[in-house]
């Protein structure tokens, strides 16, 4: 990493390569603790421990949530309040909350359907960004000069907000569907490129030597050395990318229309359905959270072997 000062900004250390010793140590300690417990009193103790651990992670957020809802209720519980209270939202937007997958008409569908529509666009845009980003990052990461030349450009482009790409995208594609996909793509692609390139640059010389002695051809080198070795970096890039995609889709759909969750908010705003908007925000937040965790999980499974050597 020493070759690129200022780069580590994008490389999330928590999701990156774990120092070999640390990872190994924690793992062995964990296994030891479990082994001791099972030896003493098998099932009941283990079940209790798991239960206690689950409670420790689930209970605090629930308590905080209840407290926040209460404060919100108290603050907005008067006739002239500008924002709806939780109870008002519950009654006004009840069908949206309890049944995500209703279909009353072509434009009157549950938020679950809308989220799925948006997710489909994200799948196209993000999938494209992942493929293009990894391949481009691999190419750029191979060459010191490509890295030096392109990196500043990437660093500038990655700060351009999604909505700023939309006019250009609309002008180029003349159609809202592809434009929305393009906006997602162009928003998500930069962290993938940059992180992949950093990962490629950080492939240990040892692995390169092994590849050279074996005379791996470029394709074999790409699949058998580059991708696995850079995987922790690549997944960090993908994780940042999926978050940005989800941000972009909502913004893009507000302008392009259709049945996505983004346009739903815009539509609700135009017809002053504030309660609906709040429910939609919760949907968006939860889906964004799940997407992030999903990529993190896939990354953890895929990079099992690379964490330590």
């Amino acid at each position, binding site marked *: 990493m020493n070759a690129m000062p200022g780069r580590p900004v994008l490389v999330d250390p928590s999701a990156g390569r774990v120092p*070999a010793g640390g990872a*190994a140590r924690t793992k062995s300690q964990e296994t030891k603790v479990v082994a001791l417990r099972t030896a003493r009193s098998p099932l009941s103790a283990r079940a209790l421990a798991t239960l206690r651990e689950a409670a420790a992670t689930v209970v605090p957020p629930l308590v905080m949530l209840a407290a926040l809802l209460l404060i919100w209720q108290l603050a907005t519980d008067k006739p002239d309040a500008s924002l709806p209270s939780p109870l008002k939202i519950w009654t006004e937007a009840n069908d949206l909350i309890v049944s995500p997958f209703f279909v009353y008409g072509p434009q009157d569908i549950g938020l679950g359907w809308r989220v799925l529509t948006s997710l489909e666009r994200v799948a196209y845009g993000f999938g494209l960004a992942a493929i293009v980003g990894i391949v481009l990052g691999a190419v750029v990461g191979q060459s010191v000069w490509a890295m030096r030349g392109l990196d500043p450009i990437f660093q500038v482009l990655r700060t351009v907000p999604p909505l700023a790409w939309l006019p250009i995208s609309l002008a180029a594609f003349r159609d809202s569907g592809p434009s929305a996909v393009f906006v997602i793509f162009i928003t998500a692609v930069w962290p993938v490129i940059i992180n992949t390139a950093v990962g490629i640059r950080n492939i240990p010389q*040892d*692995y390169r*030597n*092994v590849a*050279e*002695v*074996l*005379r*791996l051809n470029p394709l*074999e080198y790409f699949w*058998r*050395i580059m991708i*696995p*070795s850079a*995987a922790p970096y690549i997944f960090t890039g993908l994780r940042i990318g999926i978050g940005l995609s989800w941000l972009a889709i909502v913004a893009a759909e507000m302008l392009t229309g259709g049945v996505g969750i983004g346009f739903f908010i815009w539509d609700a705003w135009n017809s002053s359905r504030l309660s609906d908007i709040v429910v939609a925000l919760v949907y968006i937040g939860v889906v964004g959270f799940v997407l992030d965790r999903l990529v993190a999980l896939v990354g953890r499974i895929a*990079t*099992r*072997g*690379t*964490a*330590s*050597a």
Partner: protein
Amino acid sequence: MTAQLAKPFLQLQGVRKVFSRGGMETEVLTDISLDIAEGEFVSIIGHSGCGKSTLLNLVAGLTRVTTGAVLLENREVNEPGPERAVVFQNHSLLPWLTVYENVRIAVDKVFGRTKSRADRHAWTLHNLDLVQMGHAKDKRPAEISGGMKQRVGIARALAMEPKVLLMDEPFGALDALTRAHLQDSVMQIHARLGNTAIMITHDVDEAVLLSDRIVMMTNGPSARVGEVLEVGLPRPRNRLELVSDARYIHAREAVLKFLYERHRFVEAA
């Protein structure tokens, strides 16, 4: 099995290596000439930083000579290849592959066209058994000890059926007992397969025990071959019997004198 009798199999002819970095030029090796016979086991010994790894990398083709040439069977070496397999100092196993897969990737690459899938599988297992690692074939490198990793590294190199086996301080990072075990394994394998081998070491006993000849290098920069010692001990060799063998003691003394009297390591101030 002396170098003079057999035809030169591997030749280094007036090899010189200069590294240039940021306008600065450092001559690491100069005027290295060496003939190695087929089946010979040669050790290269010298103080840290004198250019032993650089020399091995030149033979491996991982770095290019500045002047001079490396010839294997009269053909110039100018790129890496499986016929000059390397056992790297720090094992260099791919951590995302299992022990089996680490060897299999080499087998597939070298014998992908000439051996059937079943034969390649059997050959992989055979080489793992050769280094007594068959039992751990499904483990990942992170799950096995340093000595075991080094064994797998040796299996990977042997599985390529190299013309020359290159080893860069293969046992450097291991404890004394594991080290002795692996030295014995390497001796047995060498006796069985008769590979030509070059091993880098900074351990005098290891060099004398394993080698037919010991190449002693002077200190860098501009290191050269100081002396070459014919060990001349009969094989098979047994480390316990050798301890009191006069020829062994003599060879050991010769190397020690070279390293610690005539070419003492001077710490760059």
